């Protein structure tokens, strides 16, 4: 046996050929954005461009308003405030989608958490009790989602659709279909307080986004999320507990919904079973516009945030131009399409454009 080893060819020193091979893969051949996360960054530039275009449209259509710097600043804050609740939900959604799932129940969870934290009983515990309740309810529902998907082996679409229906039903049951007014000034203050001239809601959004970014890009949890969504079999073979991870992803989404519930309740100074209607659609759309792959394995938090902001800027644009609802809808459809197209064409170099040209679209 040992003779086999002896008789085998002597180890060649391969430097020459190696260098040759190296040339082939030399990073210099690739543009900078080909690097880690660069593609996402490029995409996000496209989203920023879209945002700029929207603002320019605003300036062109309402020069009177945009002439006033105070108004512009206030309007920017309004847009961000408007984006804050959906933004927080979208961060959780982005994780779930990157991890290969989908969460249709987010709006329902926000409603359930909001209703639960504004019951008379809960309100008697004060702001702390209310916040704790909202977060716990969100987390718990998220965990149930996760268990259904990972251990119940339900398709995420179906599991969370079932949860959507059930959670809204439960919220209606708890609130007896009434709108529950929040009498807690601390909670209500969350929506009306400004710190250094910037609304508290915006700080919360920024904090959640920052935490989401760190979690996705700098922790093992985040990196494993990409693996679980991108190639679950590979993740399993690499020793990752895919099921447990899946549960954690839905739990995270639920927690974000709990936070969003507090924010929304504060904004409305009340909660009701029908609130946060269709937030799931907004959140999924924002994530996807932001470059998250619906099939999992790819996505960025910043992209999702930009997606949310683009949507709320569009809404704002319509409001300041007082477009009728039907015109709004028609234009909105067009803007969404245009936004995505701009992203694709503007920043692609020719080769990439051609390369993509031959790639099939799903």
């Amino acid at each position, binding site marked *: 046996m040992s003779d086999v080893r002896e008789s085998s060819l002597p180890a060649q020193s391969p430097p020459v050929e190696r260098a040759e091979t190296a040339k082939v893969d030399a990073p210099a051949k690739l543009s900078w954005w080909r690097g880690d996360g660069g593609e996402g960054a490029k995409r996000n530039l496209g989203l920023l461009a879209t945002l700029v275009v929207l603002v320019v449209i605003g300036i062109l259509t309402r020069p009177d308003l945009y002439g006033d710097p105070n108004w512009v600043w206030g309007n920017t804050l*309004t847009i961000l405030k408007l984006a804050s609740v959906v933004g927080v939900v979208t961060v959780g959604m982005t994780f779930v989608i990157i991890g290969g799932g989908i969460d249709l129940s987010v709006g329902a969870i926000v409603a359930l958490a909001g209703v639960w934290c504004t019951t008379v009983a809960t309100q008697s515990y004060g702001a702390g009790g209310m916040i704790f309740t909202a977060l716990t309810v969100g987390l718990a529902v998220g965990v149930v989602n996760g268990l259904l998907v990972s251990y119940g082996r339900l398709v995420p679409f179906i599991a969370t659709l079932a949860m959507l229906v059930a959670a809204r039903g439960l919220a209606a049951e708890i609130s007896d*279909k009434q*709108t529950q007014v929040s009498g807690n000034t601390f909670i209500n203050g969350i929506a009306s307080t400004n710190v250094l001239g910037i609304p508290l809601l915006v700080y919360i959004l920024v904090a959640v986004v920052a935490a989401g970014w760190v979690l996705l890009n700098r922790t093992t949890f985040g990196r494993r999320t990409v693996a679980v969504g991108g190639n679950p079999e590979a993740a399993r073979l690499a020793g990752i507990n895919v099921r447990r991870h899946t549960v954690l992803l839905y739990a995270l989404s639920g927690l974000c919904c709990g936070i969003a519930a507090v924010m929304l309740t504060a904004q*409305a100074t009340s909660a*009701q*079973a029908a609130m946060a209607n269709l937030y799931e659609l907004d959140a999924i759309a924002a994530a996807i516009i932001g470059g998250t792959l619906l099939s999992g394995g790819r996505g960025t938090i910043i992209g999702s945030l930009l997606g949310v902001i683009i949507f709320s800027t569009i*809404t704002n644009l319509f409001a300041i131009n*007082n*477009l009728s609802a039907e015109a709004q809808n028609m234009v909105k459809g067009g803007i969404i399409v245009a936004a995505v197209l701009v992203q694709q064409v503007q920043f692609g170099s020719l080769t990439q454009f051609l390369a993509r040209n031959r790639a099939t679209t799903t």
Partner: protein
Amino acid sequence: GCTSNEQSPTEAQTKAAGSGANTEPGKKVSIGFSAPAADHGWIAAITNNAKAQAGAYQDVELKSVEAGADAAAQRAALSTLISQKPDVIVLLPHDGKELNAFGLEAMKAGIPVVNLDRAFPDARAYRLQIKGDNYGMGVAAATYIAEQLKAKGVSNPVIGEIPGIESLELTQERSKGFADTLASYGFKVANRRPAEFTVDSGQQAATGLFQALPKIDAVWNHDDDQGIGVLAAVNQANRKEFLMVGGAGSKKAMEDIAADNTVLKATVTYSPSMASSAISLARLIGQGKGMSDLVELQVPKEIVLASETITKENASDYLKLGF
């Protein structure tokens, strides 16, 4: 909604400017107006009426903002409205409680708020409240049904109900009025199938109801718009053994009642003409005038329209008010 394909007869639901002292042109008033996006006839009529009524005054400028799909969107729209500093705001909120904070904000900023239809819980959040009587609608519908059944001598009637969007508080008030009044006659609702104020949902809810109740004595359908679907379901199921009462008072419903060839025998009003009245009163508030028939120098704080019962006998009188 306007269930015919003709132009909506908003003129009938507005008050011509030109009779009485109050209608004389006065100080210019700019009125901000916001109502949810119209996805069904009643809301569409509200917006149309408001615009038509404002158009009838030379001294009124209407700035309307579309309120989008939910309370959050409406809040966003309203914040742009405030920045345009109207003299008065007329507002049909998605949800009174959710927009209470906005009412307070505007009032604090010195802009009187006229709340249309969906009340703010906080009295400081509005200058004037004008709305229909949801509970009263239920009462009226139940009263009509109970009297009819009593007259027929039905002792243990099977009564069905087709409400509108279940999660709205107004739906619950209507149902409560209905149930309370029926109870006073010793009756109860056998089955309740909510629809969504749309024709197709009305058809489906009614189909479910008929399936559950092989024999029915009376049905109350909360909304004449979805009632088109309900009547379609009645024909498709070939069920004629019961009487039906509608809600809101659309033109088509009134025509059907007058013709008396369907199960629809009556409807209880909840008229979108309240929007016209709201604009008129907002104008007076903006000009600091009172209602000329009242002694008070100012417009009152709260007006609740009575829900009237339209039957074959009086349908022709109300037809012009149908939307």
